[in-house]
């Protein structure tokens, strides 16, 4: 894990002192709301439907147990006892008081955390693979480069007032678990000539009202050129991005308006001009950052295979949890374990203070005190000895967090929706609760197989509905909440934008409509076909007929 140095800590202390003074001035009437709003947003503080919402950055989704415990403390002391994991691997607290924010930011700084770059038209908190540093299919730990980007982008004077927000994702594995195709810039670590490593760069992906899958920008960029090349990409965007129209201001619009070829030409021209100016990090600085991410020394922990097999055969829920939530680690004695915050009926991604503390305890006991947040709104313990899986499962069961439904239909991504968000048109959370309760039978959910169902409460798509195998978008239809269904989206290596199936449904009809879609899939699938494979083979028509008949 990266550890803050004195510079990082001094910067945060200065920043928090500055914001404390700004809050004091606001409360005293020395700043109007118009003056204060951009200042609070730069510190992650939004005003939502019910209260202020504080969005806290979890850089590339990686936390220590100490940090997670502190989030639990914040939830209990200053919120209503729970927080919400976001689809940007962050956490939001939904009932924060303005007068408490300076103290909360101080509590965060105590554990080297903050709420910077979680709002505004800047480079947002970089996301990455939640299995980074542990995955069996990893080429290189992407956190090294995500940390390079974090240090480069924080308070970058040129890129603090971009035309619009800007999102990076970095993956270092063969399988994309960071949804890089739906980011402004997606970075994939790849092997190059002579055993070198470099980056495959993608640009112009994103969701929102105009969804695009990112296009390849550069097939291979040497690692030492990363920052100068990205600087050239950002500069061309900063120059030509549409500041006159918020709906056309993202880089995806620019890239698709002028074409990726022309955008690339301009970037290459700018890059050739600036690369000699020394924007890239010296090798020793990269090595300094790399040294923070050396793989932990995981002692050999042979598994008692017979006892493990017996436990699996005697407990179907444990067996399912192992199948669904435990994946291969680069050290064969170890495993990466998902902790699902998606028990049927619970709001997706919500976590109580008690649960945060339970996971922090489990991380200390079983995972080198490391925890990750996923963009699917779950947590991951990256370094668990297989010999500890039974004990870990029992601990998680006691905490109510032993659901074995990772990537199944009940593992729904949902934005906060109209229950919290001032942008939303419709509620997401009750819809997710109703659908998960309908598919609560774990055997049935597993029989359906991998099925990503994503829900957004408005077209801004924080719930990634465009990338759902089944996507649900909340819309306002004459003052009532309606929901539009899309099929065929994916955020994985086969990234695609889902297609709208037909007219929207009122909330009370939606769970049955989803069940109808699932039943249609089960009727049509052959062999071990996944939902997406069946959809690709049979197309949308059988699903349209099932839902709308001759309507």
């Amino acid at each position, binding site marked *: 894990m990266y550890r803050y140095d004195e510079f990082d800590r001094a910067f945060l202390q200065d920043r928090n002192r500055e914001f404390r003074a700004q809050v004091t001035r*606001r*409360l*005293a*009437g020395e700043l109007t*709301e118009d003056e204060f709003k951009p200042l609070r947003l730069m510190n992650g503080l939004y*005003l*939502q*439907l*019910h*209260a*202020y919402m504080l969005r806290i950055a979890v850089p590339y989704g990686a936390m220590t147990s100490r940090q997670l415990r502190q989030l639990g403390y914040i939830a209990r002391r200053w919120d*209503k006892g*729970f927080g919400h994991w976001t689809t940007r691997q962050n956490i939001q607290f*939904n*009932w*924060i*008081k*303005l*007068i408490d924010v300076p103290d909360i930011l101080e509590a965060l700084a105590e554990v080297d955390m903050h709420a910077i770059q979680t709002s505004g038209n800047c480079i947002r908190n970089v996301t990455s693979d939640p299995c980074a540093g542990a995955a069996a299919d990893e080429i290189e730990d992407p956190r090294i480069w995500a940390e390079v980007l974090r240090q480069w982008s924080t308070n970058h004077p040129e890129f603090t007032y971009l035309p619009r927000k800007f999102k990076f994702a970095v993956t270092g594995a063969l399988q994309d678990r960071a949804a890089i195709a739906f980011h402004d810039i997606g970075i994939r670590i790849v092997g190059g000539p002579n055993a070198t490593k470099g980056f495959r760069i993608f640009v112009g992906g994103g969701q929102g009202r105009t969804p695009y899958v990112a296009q390849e920008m550069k097939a291979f960029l040497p690692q030492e050129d990363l920052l100068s090349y990205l600087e050239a990409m950002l500069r061309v965007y900063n120059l030509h991005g549409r500041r006159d129209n918020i709906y056309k201001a993202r880089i995806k619009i620019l890239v698709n308006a002028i074409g990726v070829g022309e955008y690339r030409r301009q970037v290459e021209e700018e890059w050739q001009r600036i690369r000699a100016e020394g924007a890239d990090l010296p090798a020793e600085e990269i090595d300094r950052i790399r040294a923070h991410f050396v793989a932990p020394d995981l002692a050999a922990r042979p598994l008692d295979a017979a006892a493990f097999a017996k436990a699996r055969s005697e407990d179907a829920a444990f067996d399912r949890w192992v199948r669904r939530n435990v994946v291969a680690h680069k050290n064969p004695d170890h495993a990466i374990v998902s902790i699902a915050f998606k028990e049927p*009926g*619970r*709001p997706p991604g*919500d976590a*109580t203070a008690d649960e945060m503390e339970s996971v922090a305890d489990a991380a200390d006991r079983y995972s080198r005190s490391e925890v990750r947040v996923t963009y699917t709104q779950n947590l991951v313990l990256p370094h668990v000895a297989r010999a500890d899986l039974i004990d870990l499962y029992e601990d998680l069961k006691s905490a109510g967090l032993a659901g074995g439904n990772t990537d199944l239909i009940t593992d729904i991504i949902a934005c906060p929706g*109209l*229950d*919290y968000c001032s942008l939303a048109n*419709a*509620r997401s*959370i*009750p*819809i997710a*609760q*109703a659908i998960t309760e309908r598919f609560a039978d774990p055997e049935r959910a597993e029989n359906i197989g991998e099925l990503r169902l994503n829900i957004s409460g408005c077209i801004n798509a924080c719930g990634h509905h465009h990338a759902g195998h089944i996507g649900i978008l909340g819309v306002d239809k004459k*003052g*009532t*909440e309606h929901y539009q269904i899309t099929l065929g989206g994916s955020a994985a290596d086969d990234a695609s934008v889902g297609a709208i199936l037909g007219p929207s449904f009122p*909330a*009370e009809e*939606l*769970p049955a409509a989803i069940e109808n879609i699932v039943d249609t899939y089960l009727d049509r699938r052959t062999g071990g076909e996944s939902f997406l494979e069946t959809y690709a083979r049979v197309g949308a028509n059988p699903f349209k007929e099932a839902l709308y008949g001759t309507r």
Partner: protein
Amino acid sequence: MRNVITANRLEDGIVVYLGHTGDWTSDLAAARVVDSRHDLEALEKIAAAAVAACHVVGVYAMDVDLSSGKPMPKSVREKIRAAHRQTFKDLTEIEIR
């Protein structure tokens, strides 16, 4: 058209409504309801003063229905705001099945 004035309280962001005596209350039932443009403008002046005095932020007028004898929001959004509901522990409030 019947209206009340709503806002968020500056210091904690809680949803509030302008009451009968120029006070701000989190209870919609205690809000002052007006049914004329003239009366609404009078409330808006009081609200603007409260914004200037840093009591509230984000002021606007919202439609209400009085058929039950007390003001009820017309839109889902305002029903959610008026309920001050939270999703995690208020599972009994789920209306969708």
